[in-house]
């Protein structure tokens, strides 16, 4: 079973008394804030959950695993996640 946005919205509705429309809108706004922050290169730190970090990767040589051809991979920016100690304890 996989947790999706729809279930989170439902839970927010139940626990806050917001309407479905408002709860959906709020979750979308929250997601947009997180994405906007990360896309400016700013990390998002959620205490008790973890840290979403933006990392710059350098250009490097790689290989196409299917053909074995060498190719240059351009520098890029990626998001990584570092789990907090609390979440880690909860999962284990």
């Amino acid at each position: 079973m996989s947790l999706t946005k729809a279930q989170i919205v439902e839970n927010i509705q139940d626990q806050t008394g917001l309407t479905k429309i408002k709860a959906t809108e709020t979750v979308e706004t929250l997601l947009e804030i997180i994405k906007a922050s990360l896309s400016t290169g700013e990390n998002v730190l959620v205490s008790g959950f973890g840290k979403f970090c933006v990392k710059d990767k350098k250009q490097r040589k790689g290989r196409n695993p299917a053909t074995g051809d060498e190719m240059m991979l351009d520098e890029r920016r990626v998001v990584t996640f570092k789990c907090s100690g609390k979440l880690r304890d909860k999962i284990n």
Partner: protein
Amino acid sequence: MNKLELVQALKDSNGLSKPEAEKVVNIFFNEMANALAKGDRVEIRGLCSFFVKEYKSYTGRNPKTGEKVKIAPKKLPFFKAGKELKERVDR
């Protein structure tokens, strides 16, 4: 950006009261944490997905002293960025 700033930004852009915004942020991350604690997958379209990966016990080394240490089996959440997030961060 930390959780407080997240709450503030949500409050400012959505006309919620501060306690409401705080509640939404807490529920959002708690739900994900609870799902992972049960071993369930989490999939938030456009942002990311998580699943729990199990690591077996292995013998590692303390990088400082070179001493052998036994690492107990553990579970960790594995993060995968969503398509939209990936594209927006990389531009």
